[in-house]
């Protein structure tokens, strides 16, 4: 992959070499060919060395949150090549970042030839390291920090898309996407009353192929797309060391343990899908639009598990030492979505938008599980399952927008959402299935005011009196409001503010849910003289969240209240200034960073101050250095805090 990317990156350079050089002795500046060459290839390359101080505190948390290491890095590549002849391409853009060992490697290539094609390629390789004992550690009460849900994995994504004849009335297109994950981790194997932390090797991949055609006429557009996916998941969970698990209390005088395990998931899936999009404006006062989306993913499963040790069968309360499980299963999920609507403009100032949507997802699956206790030998237990999950969702919405004058727009509307869901019943309830219903009446209102180009604000409100939701925490009786304002005080000074509030309640006495969140933000951007000497940007957010809900304590079925509080102060700023005394092309200093300080149910402090210095070195080359500090603290989980410094020194070469 990297070699291929290097090859792609070299394309512009190779193209540059094909330009005719100026004859010897001729003034290069006078040569139109050379002058043109200088304009054709533009961009910059950033290469540097990053030094990581090491993490004070928890290295695992540092890797979970930041994960930058030491070494030489291609920090950024941004090249654009214009073709003078415009024979095979008009322009090629190549971008990349984070190569050489960073946890996020990205690459992008796009090429355009007017009226011929439009090609894009995107690549991302993102590392996910997550090793947080506070997230899943059943032994934490004993002072043992042993994570049983940890992952050190990578996800790689590639997207290719080729549009043919862009800008013409008929545009065929082809696309391919790849998404895969692999790595190692720790997960749990559960047997009877005990669970054991064991090694995990997840590996999955999804391929997505699609092609279609867009018909773009003056008053009518339709997109027809047909696609398909294939999926495979070959996760393996295994151990060969003795493990006494999370429940070390002997059962019937016997110590439960796991001595060896091999779980193999052989999951394959595929899907076909179809997409039809339509827009039209048959008359100047009417737009119509519609979508029809259909997918039918399926999954087949071949699972096997062989485990040895000392285990308990909960149904018979018998102990056994070896077990073989084999499962074969299949699932199918036809999913149909349709939406249609129109916008009508009976008067110049009035718009009415009406839309109807339906979404129907029906999951049907069957499984056959063969559980065979090998020692002591017992008859195989065969179990068949047939499961269903049904979702029928519908929405109807009407919006009316009226331009009171050129500065004020009023908006009102109504949305009705209804549907039903069916899922498997709770194990202890004895019910084969549970059903839920959704009914929600939502009122919509808003006003936008543009006093001038310098001052504008808008108010948006949504309120609902729903009487049925799928879940206890679903939106039920809620009010949501947002106020946003922008003011350009001077040509160089812009202020912004945004206030949002969501209040949701489910007054049912068995639920008693009260949720209130507020987000208040202000921002400032100051760039006197178009940022020639100094620029300043900053924002501050104060967010609060309060949630209270009744729940049942599982061990005694008493009612208790779950309360969650989150009070956040967040601020970030960056000042860029030209160091006085060196002229307009002198060194530049940037100082800023961000801080997050939360209190409440999970207090957290996270600081990221930064400072960078850029110094011109030679014509289009400049040196730069950046220092960044990361400070992370969790008062309830002190062992997860860390502090780290990163220092980057590099060179930027402009072309």
């Amino acid at each position, binding site marked *: 992959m990297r070699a291929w990317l290097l090859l792609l990156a070299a394309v512009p350079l190779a193209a540059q070499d094909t330009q005719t050089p100026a004859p010897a002795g001729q003034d290069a500046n006078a040569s139109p060919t050379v002058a043109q060459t200088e304009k054709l290839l533009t961009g910059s390359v950033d290469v540097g060395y990053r030094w990581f101080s090491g993490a004070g505190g928890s290295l695992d948390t540092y890797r979970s949150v930041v994960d930058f290491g030491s070494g030489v890095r291609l920090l950024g590549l941004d090249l654009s090549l214009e073709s003078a002849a415009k024979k095979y391409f008009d322009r090629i853009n190549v971008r990349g970042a984070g190569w050489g060992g960073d946890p996020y490697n990205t690459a992008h290539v796009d090429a355009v030839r007017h009226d011929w094609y439009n090609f894009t390629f995107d690549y991302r390789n993102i590392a996910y390291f997550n090793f947080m004992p506070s997230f899943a550690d059943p032994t934490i009460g004993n002072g043992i920090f042993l994570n049983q849900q940890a992952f050190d994995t990578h996800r790689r994504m590639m997207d290719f898309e080729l549009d043919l004849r862009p800008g013409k009335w008929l545009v065929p297109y082809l696309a391919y996407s790849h998404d895969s994950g692999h790595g190692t981790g720790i997960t749990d194997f559960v047997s009877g009353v005990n669970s054991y932390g064991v090694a995990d090797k997840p590996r999955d991949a999804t391929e997505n192929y699609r092609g279609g055609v867009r018909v773009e006429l003056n008053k009518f557009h339709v997109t027809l797309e047909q696609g398909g996916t294939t999926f495979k998941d070959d996760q393996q969970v295994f151990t060969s060391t003795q493990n006494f698990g999370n429940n070390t209390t002997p059962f019937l005088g016997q110590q439960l343990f796991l001595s060896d395990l091999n779980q193999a998931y052989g999951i394959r899936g595929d899907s076909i899908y179809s997409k039809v999009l339509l*827009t039209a404006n048959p008359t100047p006062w009417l737009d119509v639009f519609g979508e029809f989306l259909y997918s039918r993913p399926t999954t087949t499963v071949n699972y096997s598990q062989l485990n040895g040790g000392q285990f308990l069968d909960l149904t018979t309360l018998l102990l056994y030492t070896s077990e073989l499980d084999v499962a074969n299963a*299949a699932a199918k999920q036809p999913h149909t979505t349709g939406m249609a609507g129109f916008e009508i403009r009976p008067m110049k100032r009035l718009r009415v938008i009406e839309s109807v949507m339906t979404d129907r997802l029906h999951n049907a699956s069957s499984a056959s599980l063969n559980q065979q206790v090998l020692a002591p030998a017992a008859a195989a237990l065969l179990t068949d399952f047939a499961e269903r999950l049904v979702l029928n969702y519908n929405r109807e919405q009407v919006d009316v927008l009226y331009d009171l004058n050129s500065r004020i727009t009023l908006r009102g509307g109504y949305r009705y959402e209804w549907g039903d869901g069916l899922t498997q019943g709770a*194990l202890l*309830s004895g019910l084969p299935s549970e059903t839920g219903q959704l009914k929600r009446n939502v009122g919509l209102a808003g006003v936008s005011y543009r006093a001038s180009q310098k001052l504008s604000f808008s108010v948006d409100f949504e309120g609902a009196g729903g009487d049925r939701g799928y879940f206890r925490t679903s939106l039920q009786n809620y009010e949501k409001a947002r106020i946003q304002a922008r003011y350009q005080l001077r040509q160089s000074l812009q202020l912004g503010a945004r206030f949002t509030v969501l209040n949701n309640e489910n007054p049912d006495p068995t639920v008693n849910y009260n949720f209130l969140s507020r987000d208040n933000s202000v921002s400032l951007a100051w760039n006197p003289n178009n940022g020639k000497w100094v620029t300043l940007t900053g924002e501050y957010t104060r967010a609060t969240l309060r949630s209270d809900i009744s729940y*049942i304590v599982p061990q005694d*079925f008493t009612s208790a209240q779950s309360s969650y509080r989150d009070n956040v102060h967040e601020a970030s700023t960056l000042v860029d200034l030209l160091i006085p005394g060196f002229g307009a092309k002198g060194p530049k200093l940037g100082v800023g960073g961000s801080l997050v300080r939360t209190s409440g149910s999970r207090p957290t402090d996270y600081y990221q101050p930064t400072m960078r210095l850029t110094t011109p070195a030679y014509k289009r080359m400049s040196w730069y250095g950046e220092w960044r500090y990361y400070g992370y603290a969790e008062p309830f989980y002190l062992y997860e805090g860390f502090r780290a410094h990163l220092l980057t020194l590099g060179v930027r070469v402009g072309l």
Partner: protein
Amino acid sequence: MCHEDIFKAFQKNPHAVVEKEKRWRNETHACESCHGAGSKHVESTSAADIRNPAKLPAGEADHNCLSCHLNQPTHVGRIQSGHAKDQVSCVSCHAMHKSAEELVPRRRAVINAKCANCHLSEWASFQKPYKHKLPEGAMSCVDCHNPHGSALPHSIRTVSANEPGCLNCHGDKRGPFVFEHAPVRLEGCTTCHEPHGSANPRMLTRHEVRFVCLECHANTPAMAATSRTLGGVPPAFHDLRAPQFQNCNVCHVKVHGSNVNQELLR
């Protein structure tokens, strides 16, 4: 020439084809395709005599753009989007006279900065320790949201026709699973996750796993009948005083859906 700087910048803008190609029906006078007839303005040089989309009400400005661009797939449903209802017009995000990159930003950092300009509190969430990697430049807002609108709430992108955009990267959570976890399908990933940023290592909506689960799984059959909500109560041997049971997914490892076990244990 009065608007020489705009004219020069416009030559690098994809809209420059309007000036050069007959089929757009404004050959040699591309400016008039958006600004309307300009003869009066040429004579008077008064700004009042020319249409300026940046000063028009959003609906009118959008209609101006959509007279050409309505018939493109990205705009299907645009009038359903939050941007449309909040009167955020096309010109709020797209610089019409400048380079292709400024017209439609492609660089992730540029996209994120543009969105953060208005969505202040959302961007603030990305400063929390556990978040999607937007500040690092590995992702951008439009990887998950379609700013022009979508059939899904919050303008969430769709993949494979009608599946939520989250599955574009998290393909292992796509399913269909033999044993589904209903909230994933009925209300989506945000039932349990805070996608913009969280202090929880798995970006959960609550500080501890058990509360995420128990807020829904607190229905006895009798209670479910009155509250009419889904979510059965867990078995009674789950003694929450034991740390073993405080993180539900220590045992329920396949919480997004299982292909082997009804209780999502493997």
